[in-house]
């Protein structure tokens, strides 16, 4: 669907762009073209306002104060937990744990699950396209327990070889942790199918949904995943706030992650008893402003016509893919038929950093390097890529600027 066709359906890009103040900024005298959405998305005014309002009118510590402000803040905080539960269709608020982000959510599970359930000779399965944050926590858990890490391979298009899963699973497989949408390739993995296979063997599955939340509708009950991790800042919310969803049956079984206030039921020097979930996993004063900002981001997303938004993003992906493929020497890394609007590419004879820095001089924000997925780069035999990741507020005109910029960079840098 072209941008003109989309507008006929009621998708008004200018109206949407106006809601994101950063998009009005310029860089070195050029209007900003922001294509680093997989790293972090920009924030709509409502999110900024919600955080501002909290600090300006009802800042207080939560759950312990008897006073008006504390009650107001506590209620706002608790409402967001309910909002998150509804957003991903969790069966209960208590299955929603607030964390600092996807990384902390995965570390929480790897650490506590590892402590409780991993023994010498056990196995954890991940995939070849994981972000470092879904590799290293499991390596740490394996190191301390004597378990081993196994990896589902991928093909040259950047798609998982799901057929190999059956042969990787053994009676020692304790958990499968897999990325929903690859940050460096854009691949959307067949999560539902993977979970279906895992469930045949009664193996719990954790999903890294950091890249998925803003693009896809996630229903944890329908997916039947056991854990799901995501970050606020990759879905229009603030940095420093994330979510771990866990089925309550698992969360009840896992030991606490950190000790401190809020997570206890009673403390004495002889014996401390822990609070019930989700509080057992939320030690200390939480990121209240972050939670409130996340709540506003979810409200904003809920108000969007998500089907239409996704159509626009797919139109951007198709347009950009076609345009980029016309550039001689340019190779797209990650050509799955099921992708989000992320394009990683390399240009023959050119260094990714040089190209990224050139585009920056023209006000075009891309990311270069290994995108915290070094094993993915090794799989494709490249040191890094240039990555343009799109969101619904991007336009085809911005993509035209990207393409023009790449042509200019090629000329300047001599390819």
């Amino acid at each position, binding site marked *: 669907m072209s941008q003109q066709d989309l507008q006929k359906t009621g998708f008004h890009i200018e109206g949407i762009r106006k809601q994101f103040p950063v998009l009005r900024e310029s860089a*070195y*005298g050029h209007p900003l073209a922001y294509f680093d959405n997989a790293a972090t998305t920009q924030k709509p005014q409502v999110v900024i306002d919600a955080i501002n309002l909290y600090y300006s009118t009802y800042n207080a510590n939560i759950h312990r104060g008897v006073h008006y402000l504390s009650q107001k803040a506590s209620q706002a905080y608790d409402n967001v937990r309910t909002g998150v539960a509804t957003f991903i269709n969790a069966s209960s608020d208590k299955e929603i744990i607030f964390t600092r982000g996807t990384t902390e959510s995965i570390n929480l599970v790897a650490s506590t699950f590892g402590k409780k359930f991993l023994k010498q000779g056990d196995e954890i399965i991940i995939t070849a396209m994981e972000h470092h944050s879904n590799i290293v926590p499991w390596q740490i858990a394996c190191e301390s327990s004597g378990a081993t890490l196994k990896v589902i391979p991928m093909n040259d298009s950047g798609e998982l070889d799901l057929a190999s899963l059956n042969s990787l699973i053994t009676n020692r497989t304790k958990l499968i942790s897999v990325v929903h949408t690859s940050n460096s390739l854009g691949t959307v993995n067949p999560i539902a199918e993977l979970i279906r296979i895992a469930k045949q063997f009664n193996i719990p599955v954790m999903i890294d949904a950091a890249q998925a939340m803003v693009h896809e509708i996630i229903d944890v009950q329908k997916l039947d995943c056991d854990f799901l991790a995501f970050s606020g800042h990759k879905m229009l919310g603030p940095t420093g706030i994330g979510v771990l969803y866990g089925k309550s049956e698992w969360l009840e079984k896992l030991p606490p992650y950190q000790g401190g206030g809020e997570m206890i039921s009673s403390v004495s020097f002889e014996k401390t008893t822990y609070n019930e979930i989700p509080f057992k996993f939320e030690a200390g004063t939480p990121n209240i402003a972050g939670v409130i900002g996340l709540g506003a981001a979810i409200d904003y997303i809920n108000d969007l016509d998500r089907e239409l938004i996704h159509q626009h993003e797919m139109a951007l992906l198709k347009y950009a893919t076609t345009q980029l493929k016309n550039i001689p020497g340019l190779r797209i890394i990650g050509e799955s038929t099921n992708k989000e609007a992320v394009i990683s590419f390399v240009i023959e004879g050119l*260094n*990714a*950093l*040089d190209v990224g*820095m*050139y585009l920056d*001089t*023209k006000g075009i924000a891309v990311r*270069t*390097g*290994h995108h915290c997925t070094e094993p993915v780069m090794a799989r494709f035999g490249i*040191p*890094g890529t240039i990555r343009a990741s799109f969101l619904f507020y991007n336009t085809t005109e911005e993509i035209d600027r990207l393409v023009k910029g790449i042509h200019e960079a090629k000329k*300047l*840098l*001599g390819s």
Partner: protein
Amino acid sequence: MRESLTIEEIEGQIVDEFSLFDDWSDKYQYIIEIGQKLPALDVGYKIDENKIKGCQSSVWLHAYNKDSKIYFEADSDSTFVKGEIALLIRVLSNRTPEEILASDLKFIDEIGLRQHIAVTRANGLASMIKQMKLYALGLASANQ
């Protein structure tokens, strides 16, 4: 000519050259131009022990001393980083260890380069400066 100029004087020259450019785009293109002119490092020196790994680019630094002075040669897979290298070599090569150790390389700030590189772990400039100084320190200690 070169022999008579101090590190500060060379830095001053670089600052003057960059003052001709109004914006970052022109500075970027100038650094690329310098990088393209930097002679490639002999492959025999492009070995792991000479490699300074940055997050997004690699630098190979070869240092040697002759007549109490240190000489640097370097290369990178990024043309921009090669441009930075060329600037550093212009300032720090053919110097005594003492001169190198005393240098504060203010030109990097003055030409506006630091803000474009310091915020990232993108290239090995900081590591490269550290390596150059370490080499000078090693030689200075050995001379004592």
